[in-house]
């Protein structure tokens, strides 16, 4: 099957306090309209459109790395579609702890840099 690109974006800014979340195994992403106080803690990107809802079984891809998506919280798709907001937890759980969570494989977090591209692929 040909993969479907559900969401794609380029990282434009990395907040000075992103490490607060990275050290807890969490990446917090927001679109460029986020207020400053959220940008401090977030990875900011230029993504605009969620073409299809994200589901377990999809992939989060960043540069050459792929992470299998295991669980998608009930408000995660509206967060992403409305605000470009994504909470990625690298915890290996197949049930989200919080309604905003998108859980992926428990592997070391990718190193994030401005200019990197990421996407969410489904089938």
């Amino acid at each position, binding site marked *: 099957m040909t993969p479907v690109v559900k969401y794609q974006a380029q990282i434009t800014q990395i907040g000075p306090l992103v490490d*607060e*979340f990275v*050290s*807890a195994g*969490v990446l*917090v992403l927001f679109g460029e*309209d*986020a*207020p*400053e*106080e*959220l940008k*401090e*803690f*977030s990875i900011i990107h230029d993504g605009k459109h969620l073409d299809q809802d994200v589901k377990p079984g999809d992939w989060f891809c960043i540069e050459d790395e792929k992470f299998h998506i295991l669980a998608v*919280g*009930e*408000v*995660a798709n*509206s*967060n992403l*579609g*409305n*605000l470009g*907001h994504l*909470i990625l*937890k690298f915890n290996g759980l197949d049930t989200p*702890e*919080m*309604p*905003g*969570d998108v859980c992926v494989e428990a592997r070391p977090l990718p190193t994030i840099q401005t200019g990197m591209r990421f996407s969410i692929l489904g089938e």
Partner: protein
Amino acid sequence: MSEEPQYKKVKIKKGPKGWGGPLVVHPKPGKDLIYSVTGGGIHPLAQHIADLTGGKVFDGFKSKAAFEQIAVCVIDCGGTARVGVYPMKKVLTVDIYPTSPSGPLMRFITADLFVSGVRKEDVELIE
């Protein structure tokens, strides 16, 4: 002759399965924004709080405001980021989802600053 706006005070209690509060929100001149940091524009709960108190609704994704101007912040946070950021800034925070303190910033989320699971009927005019 007074030019002071007539602000009113509300008590906001937690909704079903919610946490924290109750919060008392009383807008004042210069600190009267009902700050909505929610998907899809001003949240109806923020509008409701503004209607009751005389505060001004404000969309955090469209414009900027200083924290000192915010009477209360309304979020639709699924539990990790926004739930902590506003309490950390000592801004009264109302989550429409019934979240409990969690996430890396959970140490900042206290019952005197945060209430969750809030519905319109959980907001009561007290003065």
